[in-house]
């Protein structure tokens, strides 16, 4: 069953969970990041991180090293570390050297660097330099021609996939030779010097890219466009599967297993796609049908005509101002909540309605019970 948590009525623009899911950092469309601690079945507000001067656009929490990185529209990013003495989070400014807002941030799998996408048409790869005790950024600029909207890391800690509003997804190498050793070859290529473009795909007619996601092995990358299209590139890009959907555009993607892709966005419900010979729509995780609210068997004739006057329809469900899904507004972000090995078994969605809902993939609605997620 789904767990529903409410954090006010403002949109949750971004959120991040800590390693054991006992703490949550989120931002409600303003310049503050709020940390919540789990208290029984509810949440208690712990600290408010207020260093940004403009909207916080991205939060990520590194599970093992327990560091939070936030980036904002004020062209800055901060790395927050929790002090051992009083448990308060202290910021450290990251010098990004960008002249436009930062849009998204992700820690790398090994948590020694993070990637920031920005409206300055570049990706910043930031790592810690111990000599000067600060975080430095290296830029990947070519050939990105417009705002970078989303970023995802490959499990080898070196490759990143970027989606941009110039309608292209690209895979770059973010290899920083000062802090790591050369990675092994992958399906995307063998030579990976910093900022090397490993793969590029442009969706000329389909709108800007909302989200990119690497599959658990890193051999596949999925992306979602504003033209209600999702696509997966497989086998190093030699095979691209596309599906134009009937749904509204998806804002976030997450691979549950190597072949099951979860997508969520303006349709207010998470939808599952399976990749076998092609991408197949499998259905929604949200099984609620609460359209018929009340049994208005005692509708009088006068009531009926009054409804007709007011609403233009006799249908009672039209009076219901809510949507028939759990989320009442678009889902902004999908985050893995619990993993069984490399497969995700529980997923958290954060929406523009102030709700965070945790879905259990192991008890799927009836329509998907026969589908094997392998």
């Amino acid at each position, binding site marked *: 069953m789904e767990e529903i948590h409410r954090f006010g009525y403002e949109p949750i623009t971004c959120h991040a969970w800590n390693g054991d899911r006992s703490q949550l950092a989120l931002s409600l469309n303003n310049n503050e990041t709020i940390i919540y601690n789990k208290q029984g079945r509810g949440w208690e507000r712990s600290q408010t991180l207020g260093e940004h001067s403009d909207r916080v656009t991205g939060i990520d929490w590194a599970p093992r090293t327990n560091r939070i990185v936030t980036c904002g529209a004020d062209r800055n990013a901060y790395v927050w570390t929790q002090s051992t003495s009083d448990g308060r989070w202290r910021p450290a400014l990251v010098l990004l050297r960008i002249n436009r807002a930062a849009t998204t941030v992700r820690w790398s799998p090994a948590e020694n660097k993070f990637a920031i996408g920005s409206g300055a048409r570049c990706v910043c790869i930031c790592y810690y330099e111990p000599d000067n005790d600060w975080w430095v950024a290296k830029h990947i600029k070519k050939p990105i021609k417009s705002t970078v909207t989303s970023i995802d890391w490959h499990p080898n800690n070196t490759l990143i996939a970027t989606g941009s509003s110039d309608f292209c997804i690209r895979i770059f190498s973010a290899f920083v030779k000062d802090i790591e050793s050369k990675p092994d070859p992958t399906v995307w290529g063998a030579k990976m010097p910093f900022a090397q473009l490993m793969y590029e795909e442009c969706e000329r*007619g389909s709108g800007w890219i909302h989200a990119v996601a690497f599959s658990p092995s890193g051999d596949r990358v999925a992306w979602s466009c504003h033209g*209600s299209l999702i696509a997966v590139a497989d086998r190093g890009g030699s095979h691209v599967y596309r599906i134009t959907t009937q749904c509204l555009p998806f804002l976030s993607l997450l691979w549950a297993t190597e072949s099951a892709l979860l997508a969520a966005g303006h349709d207010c419900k998470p939808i599952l796609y399976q990749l076998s010979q092609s991408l197949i729509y499998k259905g929604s995780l949200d099984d609620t049908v609460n359209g018929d609210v009340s049994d208005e068997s005692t509708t009088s004739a006068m009531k009926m005509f009054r409804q007709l006057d007011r609403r233009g329809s006799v249908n009672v469900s039209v009076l219901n101002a809510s949507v028939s899904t759990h989320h009442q507004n678009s889902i902004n972000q999908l985050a893995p909540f619990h993993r069984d090995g490399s497969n995700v078994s529980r997923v958290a969605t954060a929406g523009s309605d102030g709700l965070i809902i945790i879905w259990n993939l192991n008890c799927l609605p009836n329509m998907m019970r026969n589908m094997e997620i392998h």
Partner: protein
Amino acid sequence: MSKTVSTREFRKVDVDQYNEDNFQEDTDGNETQLQGPNETEVNNLIGSKNNVQALKAVVQNPVVGSRNTDTKLKAFRLVMRVLSVFKSSEIEAAVATLSASEVDLLMKYVYRGFSEQTTTTDNICPILLSWHEKLFAVGGLGSIVRVLTNRQTV
């Protein structure tokens, strides 16, 4: 003080194109291949009352994303003509014969039809609305989103 020059040509220079920050879209060089549907074939099919065949013919070789406004206008008028010969009861069956990309293409033409109401197209809106309803039943909200976001217009 700067010298005033009598020529005013400098005022006509489009300064924005020289701005480095502007997004330069890649122009495709394959515009010569987009010819649009075969007009004579479609007209023949309409004349012989083969409505569904005419519909299939008119969605072949779509002129999408071309800079050639004349070809696009010709294709648009042809599509409007084909859409208007259908009776409302026949539309659903015709839509069932189309593929997903053809449904998207027709949706684009329907919206272009909505936006262009001239005296030459004699009140075609009711027919377009019926087409819109049937196409929406198949294509869903996604097909409408694609009409709005696709930079390659009909």
